[in-house]
């Protein structure tokens, strides 16, 4: 097992990883920018290294600074968390060449699965259903038009290197292809340094369902059930739950098998997520593999009883997955709300000092956060300030628990998305489990 892990992240996920390391008896090194000097991830780690100024690209994204920090502290592994460098194949490669274990998949895994078109190709070859669309990159708006005619409108054009809702656009009519194509190309180049695009059928009213995968280096693969992430705004997930509300057992079984098939086809190791869209007729289509721990991993932990971060670390250390007492089960229902420091109507990030705070608690309530009263939410980083996760006997109990926990969750001094969540948990369609990826857009209009 590792002696000392450097955590190349901040906020709640850094704290989450510190907690897992502590339980495993592993020392922790946190890294921080100058403004994060007094943050919880710094306070609660065994050592800490300042790696740069506030701006992410000069600190948390600064590969040499992070590798150096690992070297001067003698860390033998790096956990990247999510975001920042977690899906950067170059970083994984450098870690490897510096003989520091990158806790995640291989750089090859990240590189191939990070290319959406390439990933789709692999899955198609492995017999995993994919959304009809181009296998190759689009070379021109003309090819896009030709493909769109074959597939049928609406279609969606995406950047090969996009993700998290960025670098994609829905096209309803042929006459709009030209303009969207070129603007998307520019946007993709500016955001990801690559302008490659591809096209797909756009599914209407789909559910976004992902499967949590664990794969060890010995080739053992299991899935720990699905997560319904359909409650999203501009492709940013806001609420996740497991099990999915309206998914038949037979479809769940088929999709779980496809997820394992996908993992095998990609020769993947570590914790990962296979994402699907499910249409109203029970058709399901592979979208992508997320090669990192997900923000929403806690709901799977509560339902299965598995600590995913610990499992991820153990797999990286060469352990067989779920060795020892780590049996899993599927028990009850779990839901997560992402509490963002954002205006609850327009979702504009908002920074500032938290002047009053009441965190919810009690049975079946878990809060993953690195905020406290008097903490200042900084404008440099992600707006996620807390994850509120509940676990109940069934979906109804989980919803009531979340409703109460949201009621108790009080933050003053900054705007948060709590009022948005409170409304969702009183919405009839949500309560009935009748929702698709368009839920938030139509919900916000009313």
């Amino acid at each position, binding site marked *: 097992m590792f002696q000392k892990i450097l955590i190349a992240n901040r906020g709640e996920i850094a704290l989450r990883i510190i907690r897992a390391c502590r339980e495993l008896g592993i020392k922790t090194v946190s890294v921080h920018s*100058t403004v994060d000097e007094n943050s919880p991830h710094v306070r609660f780690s065994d050592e800490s*290294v*300042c790696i*740069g100024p506030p701006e992410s690209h000069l*600190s948390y994204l600064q590969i*040499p*600074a992070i590798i150096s920090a690992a*070297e001067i*502290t003698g860390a033998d592994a790096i956990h990247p968390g999510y975001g920042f460098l977690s899906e950067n194949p170059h970083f994984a490669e450098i870690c490897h060449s*510096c003989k520091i274990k990158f806790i995640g998949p291989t750089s090859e895994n990240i590189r191939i699965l990070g290319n959406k078109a390439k990933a789709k190709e692999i899955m198609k070859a492995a017999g995993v259903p994919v959304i009809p669309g181009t296998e190759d990159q689009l070379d021109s708006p003309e090819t896009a038009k030709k493909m769109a005619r074959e597939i049928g409108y609406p279609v969606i054009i995406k950047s090969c290197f996009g993700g998290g809702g960025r670098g994609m656009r829905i096209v309803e009519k042929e006459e709009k292809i030209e303009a969207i194509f070129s603007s998307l190309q520019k946007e993709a180049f500016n955001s990801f340094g690559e302008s490659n695009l591809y096209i797909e059928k756009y599914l209407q009213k789909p559910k976004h369902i992902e499967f949590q995968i664990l794969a060890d280096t010995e080739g053992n693969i299991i899935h720990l059930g699905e997560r319904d992430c359909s409650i999203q705004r501009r492709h940013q997930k806001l609420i996740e739950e497991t099990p999915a509300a309206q998914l038949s057992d037979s479809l769940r079984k088929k999709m779980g098998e496809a997820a394992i098939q996908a993992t095998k086809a990609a020769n993947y190791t570590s914790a990962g997520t296979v994402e699907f869209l499910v249409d109203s007729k029970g058709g399901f289509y592979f979208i992508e593999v997320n090669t990192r721990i997900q923000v929403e991993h806690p709901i799977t932990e509560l339902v299965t009883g598995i600590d995913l971060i610990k499992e991820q670390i153990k797999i990286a250390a060469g352990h067989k997955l779920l060795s020892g007492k780590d049996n899993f089960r599927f028990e009850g229902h779990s839901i997560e709300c992402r509490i963002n420091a954002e205006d609850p109507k327009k979702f504009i990030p908002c920074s500032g000092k938290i002047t009053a705070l009441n965190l919810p608690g009690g049975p079946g309530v878990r809060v993953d956060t690195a905020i406290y009263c008097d903490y200042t939410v900084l404008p440099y980083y992600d707006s996620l300030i807390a994850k509120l996760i509940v676990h109940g006997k069934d979906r109804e109990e989980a919803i009531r628990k979340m409703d109460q926990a949201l009621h108790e969750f009080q933050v003053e001094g900054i705007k948060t998305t709590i009022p948005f969540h409170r409304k969702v948990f009183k919405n009839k369609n949500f309560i009935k489990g009748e929702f698709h990826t368009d839920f938030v857009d139509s919900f916000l209009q009313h």
Partner: protein
Amino acid sequence: MNFKEIKKLISIFEDSKILSELEVEESGFKVRLKKSAHETEVIQTTPSAQPSSSKPSHTAVGKTEEAHEAGMEGLIKFESPIVGTFYHAPGTNKKPFVKEGEIVQKGQILCIIEAMKIMNEVEVDIKGRIIRVYVEDGTPVEFGQPLFLIEPL
């Protein structure tokens, strides 16, 4: 009272709607804060006023920060621009790049910081006298850690 504490004191003083003056004196060391009548000018600064024209800009590789401790007026702290291991000399048994008391020219190499097996030469961006070397040869340094105390000339 160290620099951090003075910084905090200033911020408390600034935030206070009530305080108009604040003075702390301790064994030959003194901080006096006073708010201007209009409240636009925030701090009337520490004891002997210091020519702000002498404040250097940031160096290419290094970073300098005005020293605020007592008896250090007009001095500059040269901070580490990167994380790594500090080397005071180009190699073992070699002469150090600079010694305390020595005058350095703008662009002169002060030290090497090793990061990811690469030896990064760190240049100074002002002319000045090395008053103190804060870090011992071979020790790890983090971003922003003071390496040298320099008197600008």
